[in-house]
Each structure stands twice: as structure tokens, then as C-alpha cells.
């Protein structure tokens, strides 16, 4: 008790101010926690094993720069409209020559972030037969999507897409096969395999 009294007596004068400052900073820290940007740097080690790597890092200034070179017609106009309010697009895609080059442990840190506040799972399709996982996570704020994360894991391919900022999923899904880039044929599964082989 004596000790406690002594401690209080010698309490530094600036301590209340520091506590106030801490309280003031708390909302900012919470807001920062709501940022839809995922840390996917842990995947960089997979680049050495991958046969093909696609890495896209476009932050707000780069998006603005890119939008200046989008034309005012058709797909470019749609893309410009889509990225208008975006804060960033981050993509990492690895294609491997053989299976087993990456493990669940590589994806786990990303999934852990997606379990955090703000994120909710929109789609999670896991196919045991094809050993494929397709997951779509969104972050909503006031009823609007402010973040998107797509994880597509196949035996020889792993793709992580992270979009930060307001996004229209409908417009985004319509862009496939446009923008001067050929259709990526991501749905490569033959029709005969389109049986009941998946389980959520």
C-alpha cells in the first residue's frame, strides 16, 4: 500500500496527457486495422520455385497514372470507372511445374488476416478431388464493399488478389476477357469433370 501511494505521488505530470494521446490514437489504430490491404509478402519465397510469377502492385498513385492512359471508350472506360475510387490492387500469382511446391502453411498467414475484423467470407469452394480452393472475401463498410480478397489455390497454381477500396463486383466480373487481354481461360475444368466432386 505504501508503495502504491508513493508511486501515485511520484506520478509523472505528463502521464495523463500521454493517456489522452493514447486514447485519441486508438480510433486511428482501429481504422488502420480496418484497412483491406493484406500482407502477402510471405509468398515472395515461392517465386524461386515457381515457373511463372505474376506480381502486380498498384497503389493509388500508380492507379491514377494508369487511368490516364486508359482510353475513353468501351472496356477502358469501364476499367477507368471501376478503378476510379480504388486505393490499390495487389496480385501475386504463381504457376509451378509440379505439385506440392507450396503448402497450406504459405496461405495460412493470409487466411489469418482474413479472419480479422471487417472481413467476411463470400465464397469458399473446396474441391477435394481436384485439390482446389476458391475463396472470396470481402470487407464491407456501411453496406459498401471496401476490400476484396480472392484466393485461388490449385495443385500447380496459387493466386492471391487483393483489392483495396470501393469495388463493384458486378463490373469487375464483367471485365473478364476484355481490356485487350485475351480470356485467361481460368475455368479450365473439362465438362465431364463437372460432376458432383466438390464439397464446401
Amino acid at each position: 500500500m505504501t508503495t502504491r501511494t508513493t508511486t501515485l505521488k511520484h506520478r509523472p505530470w505528463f502521464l495523463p496527457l500521454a493517456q489522452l494521446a493514447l486514447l485519441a490514437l486508438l480510433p486511428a489504430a482501429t481504422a488502420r486495422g480496418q484497412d483491406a490491404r493484406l500482407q502477402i509478402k510471405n509468398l515472395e519465397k515461392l517465386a524461386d520455385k515457381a515457373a511463372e510469377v505474376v506480381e502486380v502492385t498498384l497503389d493509388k498513385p500508380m492507379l491514377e497514372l494508369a487511368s490516364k492512359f486508359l482510353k475513353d471508350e468501351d472496356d477502358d472506360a469501364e476499367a477507368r470507372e471501376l478503378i476510379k475510387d480504388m486505393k490499390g490492387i495487389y496480385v501475386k500469382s504463381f504457376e509451378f511445374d509440379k505439385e506440392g511446391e507450396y503448402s497450406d502453411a504459405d496461405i495460412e498467414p493470409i487466411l489469418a488476416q482474413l479472419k480479422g475484423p471487417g472481413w467476411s467470407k463470400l465464397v469458399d469452394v473446396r474441391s477435394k478431388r481436384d485439390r482446389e480452393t476458391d475463396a472470396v472475401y470481402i470487407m464491407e463498410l456501411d453496406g459498401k464493399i471496401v476490400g476484396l480478397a480472392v484466393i485461388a489455390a490449385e495443385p500447380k497454381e496459387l493466386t492471391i488478389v487483393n483489392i483495396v477500396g470501393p469495388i463493384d463486383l458486378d463490373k469487375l466480373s464483367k471485365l473478364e476477357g476484355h481490356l485487350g487481354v485475351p480470356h485467361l481461360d481460368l475455368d479450365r475444368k473439362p465438362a465431364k469433370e463437372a460432376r458432383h466432386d466438390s464439397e464446401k
Partner: protein
Amino acid sequence: MKPLEDDLREALRRKEPPPDLAERVLARIGHISPTGQTGQVSSPAASRPTPSEAVKTSTWSRLRSWLWRPGVRWALATAACCVLIAAVVVARQRAQRARAEAAREQLEVALQLASGKLNRAFREVRRVERIENPAPAETKATRRTERL
């Protein structure tokens, strides 16, 4: 002898030039020999420029003296600065354009990948739902995707 002939002979008689004639001439055209202090003049063949050399030297020296005039110097310096600034601006514009084009390509790839993977996930959901529930029963996932 006629007086006219005498006059002519007198007029055309050889006369020795004054002793300092050569020195005065050379001094006038700025080519006095280093030994001029002693009153000796270098040999005319060695130091005297040919007429064409004299014209060239004269032009160059005039140009040089014109270039070194303060106004001309400032004008040249300003022009050089303008050229340098223009070169830097053009180089920066080119670099920015290259960056923008690279960013545009990246954007296209990113949007294609995002769109493709998103559609694939939705297609998988719809496919599984069709197989599991032939009746048009909506699951939470489809309801949500449609809502969005």
C-alpha cells in the same frame, strides 16, 4: 639631256628604306618579334603570316572577342540552360509515359486475374448448388453474391 629624263631618273633612283621600317610595319599588325626589345626583327619569312592565315586569325579573334562580350555570354548561358531544362522535361515526360504504360499493363493483368478468379469462384458455387439442389433453392452464398 632632256629635263624630263632627268626627272624620271631622279624619281626612280633606288633609295634605302629607313632602318626601323620593318619593325614599325610588324608592330602595326601585331607581330613584333620577341627580340623586338633589342631592335632586331625576326626574319620576315618565319613570323609573317600568309594573307589567308591572317584573314583566318583575324576572323577567329573577332569571333572570340564577340563571344566574350558580357551580353553574348549571358545570352549563350541562358540558351544553354533552356536547352538543358527542355531536355530534362522531355526525359521526365518520357519516363512518366513509360511508367504509365507499364502501370496500365499491370492494371489490365490484375483486373483480368481478379475478374477471372472471381468468376471462377462464382461459377463453382453455382455449379455445386445446381448439383446439390436441382430445385432453385438459394443458399446464403448465392443470395449474397446476387445481392452484391
